C-alpha cells in the first residue's frame, strides 16, 4: 500500500531522475577536466622531448665543431660550436622550467647539466684555448698536443659523451614512459566514465519507466474505477461505492465520491417516497371525496324525483345549479385520479405502428361531424411504451376536437425526424391560444374556457406534460389567438 501523497511521489520521482542525470553530467565534466590535464602533460612532455632531441643534436654539432676546429684551426668550426653551445644553454634553462627538480627527471637533468658544464669547461674550453695558443710557439703546440691526447684520444671525451648519452636515453625513456602512462590512464578513465554514464543512464531510464508504470497503475486504475462509479451513478444506480483505504489525494476523492453517492441515494429515495406519498394522497383524497359527493348527488336527485311539486321553482333552479357543481367536482376528482395514476404502469415496450394507433383513436374522438382528421402517411414504427404515447395522442386530439370553434375544420397529424427523436405535430385550425397562456395551459385544472360552459377535467394537457416530463421529453405550442394551434412533442426513436 503506497501511503505517500501522489504529488510528493511525482516530485520525488522527478528529483531522483534529475539527480541521476546531474550525476552523469558531473562525471562527464570531470572526465573532460581530466582530458585537459592529460593534454597538458602530453604537450609538456612533447616539448621536453623536442628540447632534449635538439640538445643532443647540438652536442653533436659541438663535438664536430670542436674536432673540426682543433684539426683545421678554421674559425668556421668554432662558430658552429658556439651557436650550438649557446642554444643548449637556452634549452637547459627551458628544460629546468619544464621539469620538476624533485623527480627522477629532475635529477637526470641536473646530471646532464653538470656533465654539460664539465664537457664545456673541462674539455672544450681548455682545448680551444690551447689550440688558439698553439700556433704562437712550439711549446704551446706541444702543450696543445698533450692536452689533445689526454682529453680526446685517451678517452675522457668518449666517456663523457657516453655518460651524457646514457643520461639522455634515460631521460627520454622516462618521458616516453610518462606519456604512455598518461595515455593509459586517460583511456582507462574514458572507459570507466563511459561505463558509469551508460549504467547511470540505463538506471535513469529504468527508474523513469518504473515511475511512469507506477503512476499509471496507481493513479489511472483508480481514476478508471471512479469514472465507472460516476457512470453507474448517472445511469441511475446510486448504491455503488468504492473501497480506498489510502491517505492520498485520490483516496480523498474516492471518499468524497462515496459520500456524494450516498447523499444522492438518500435524496433520491426520499424523492421517490415523497412522490409515492403524493400519488397515494391524490388517490385517497379523490376517492374519499367521491363518497360524500355521491351522497349530495343522491339527495338532490331524490328531491327532484319525489318532491318536484312541493318545491318552489326557484329552489329547483338552485338544485339544478348544485347538480352542475357536483358534476364539475366529480370531473375534477376524476382528473386528479387520472393525473395521479400517470407513471404507475410498468414500462413495457412493444412495436407500435403510430399510423395504426392514430386510426384506432379516431373512434374515441368526440362527435364533431364537421371535423376531418388528416394523418400524414409514413408515420414511423417504434419500439416503445404504447400506453403513454397513446394517452398523449388521445389527449391532444380530443382537445383539438373539443375546442374547435368552427362548424368545419381540420386536425392534422404529421411528424419530423431528428437525429435522436421524432417530433410529432398535432395541428388544428381552431380558435388558437394567445401567447400569454402558452405555459399556463399545461398546468393542472387551468382551462381557458368558461367553467360552466364546458365539460372538462382540466387535466388533459397536464397529463401530457407529466408523461413527457417523466421521460425528459419536451412539448411546445405554436399558436396565436384566432390562428389555430400546433402542438409539438418529442418522442425518442426506438424507445
Amino acid at each position, binding site marked *: 500500500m503506497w501511503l505517500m501523497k501522489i504529488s510528493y511521489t511525482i516530485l520525488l520521482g522527478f528529483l531522483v531522475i534529475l539527480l541521476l542525470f546531474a550525476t552523469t553530467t558531473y562525471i562527464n565534466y570531470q572526465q573532460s577536466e581530466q582530458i585537459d590535464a592529460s593534454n597538458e602533460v602530453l604537450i609538456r612532455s612533447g616539448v621536453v622531448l623536442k628540447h632534449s632531441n635538439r640538445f643532443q643534436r647540438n652536442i653533436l654539432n659541438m663535438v664536430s665543431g670542436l674536432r673540426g676546429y682543433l684539426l683545421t684551426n678554421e674559425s668556421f668550426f668554432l662558430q658552429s660550436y658556439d651557436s650550438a653551445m649557446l642554444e643548449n644553454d637556452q634549452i637547459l634553462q627551458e628544460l629546468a622550467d619544464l621539469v620538476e627538480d624533485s623527480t627522477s627527471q629532475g635529477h637526470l637533468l641536473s646530471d646532464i647539466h653538470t656533465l654539460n658544464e664539465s664537457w664545456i669547461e673541462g674539455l672544450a674550453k681548455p682545448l680551444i684555448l690551447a689550440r688558439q695558443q698553439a700556433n704562437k710557439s712550439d711549446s704551446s703546440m706541444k702543450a696543445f698536443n698533450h692536452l689533445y691526447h689526454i682529453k680526446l684520444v685517451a678517452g675522457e671525451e668518449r666517456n663523457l659523451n657516453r655518460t651524457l648519452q646514457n643520461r639522455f636515453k634515460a631521460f627520454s625513456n622516462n618521458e616516453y614512459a610518462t606519456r604512455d602512462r598518461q595515455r593509459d590512464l586517460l583511456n582507462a578513465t574514458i572507459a570507466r566514465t563511459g561505463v558509469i554514464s551508460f549504467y547511470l543512464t540505463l538506471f535513469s531510464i529504468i527508474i523513469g519507466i518504473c515511475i511512469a508504470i507506477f503512476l499509471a497503475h496507481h493513479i489511472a486504475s483508480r481514476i478508471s474505477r471512479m469514472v465507472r462509479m460516476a457512470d453507474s451513478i448517472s445511469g441511475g444506480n446510486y448504491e455503488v461505492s468504492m473501497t480506498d483505504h489510502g491517505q492520498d489525494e485520490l483516496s480523498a476523492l474516492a471518499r468524497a465520491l462515496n459520500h456524494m453517492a450516498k447523499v444522492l441515494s438518500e435524496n433520491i429515495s426520499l424523492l421517490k417516497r415523497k412522490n409515492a406519498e403524493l400519488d397515494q394522497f391524490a388517490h385517497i383524497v379523490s*376517492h374519499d371525496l*367521491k363518497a360524500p359527493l*355521491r*351522497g349530495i*348527488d*343522491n339527495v338532490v336527485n*331524490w328531491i327532484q324525483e319525489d318532491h318536484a311539486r312541493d318545491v318552489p321553482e326557484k329552489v329547483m333552479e338552485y338544485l339544478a345549479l348544485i347538480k352542475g357543481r357536483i358534476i364539475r367536482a366529480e370531473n375534477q376528482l376524476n382528473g386528479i385520479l387520472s393525473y395521479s395514476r400517470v407513471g404507475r404502469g410498468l414500462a413495457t415496450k412493444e412495436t407500435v405502428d403510430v399510423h395504426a394507433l392514430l386510426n384506432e383513436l379516431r373512434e374515441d374522438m368526440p362527435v364533431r361531424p364537421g371535423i376531418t382528421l388528416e394523418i400524414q402517411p409514413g408515420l414511423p414504427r417504434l419500439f416503445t411504451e404504447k400506453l403513454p404515447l397513446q394517452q398523449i395522442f388521445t389527449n391532444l386530439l380530443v382537445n383539438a376536437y373539443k375546442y374547435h370553434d368552427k362548424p368545419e375544420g381540420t386536425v392534422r397529424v404529421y411528424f419530423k425526424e431528428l437525429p435522436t427523436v421524432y417530433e410529432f405535430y398535432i395541428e388544428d385550425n381552431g380558435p388558437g391560444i394567445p401567447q400569454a397562456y402558452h405555459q399556463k395551459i399545461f398546468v393542472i385544472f387551468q382551462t381557458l374556457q368558461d367553467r360552466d360552459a364546458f365539460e372538462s377535467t382540466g387535466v388533459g394537457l397536464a397529463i401530457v406534460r407529466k408523461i413527457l416530463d417523466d421521460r425528459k421529453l419536451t412539448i411546445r405550442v405554436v399558436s396565436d389567438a384566432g390562428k389555430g394551434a400546433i402542438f409539438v412533442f418529442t418522442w425518442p426513436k426506438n424507445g
Partner: protein
Amino acid sequence: MKRIVHILLVEDDNLDAMDLKRSLDKLGLLYKLEIAKNGEEAIRTLDSRDIEGNSALDLIILDLNMPKMNGLEFLQILRGNERWRDTKVFVLTTSSENEDRRAAAEFGISGYIVKPLKLNNAGSIDAFNLMIDLMNM
C-alpha cells in the same frame, strides 16, 4: 306467493343505505332490511340472529369501504365460520375499486352492486334479478 327477502346491509354511510332502500322499493321488492354500521356490528348481529333463531338470512349486502373492520376483513371472518360459509354476499362497490372486487371474489361472493345505484346498471342487474327470484320462490 311472494315472500319477504331478509337482507343484512353492512354499510356505514346512511345516504348510501337510503339509496339502496329506494332502489329496492323501486324494484318492487318485499324485503326486511337490517343494517349494521360496520363489520364488527355485523358479526354481532349475525350471532344474535342465530341465537334467537330468527328466520334465515337470504343475503348480505356488504360495503367494502368501512371504518374499523373493512369489508374484506369481515368477509374473511364470515367465510371462516361454517354457519355462514354459504350465505350469499353481494358487495357494494364504486366503479374504481377493481382490486377490492377481485380480492372479494376470492371469498366467494355472488356478485356486486355498483354505486351510485341505478336499476339499469349492467353490473348490478344480476343482484337485482336474484333478489326478485328469492322473493318469488
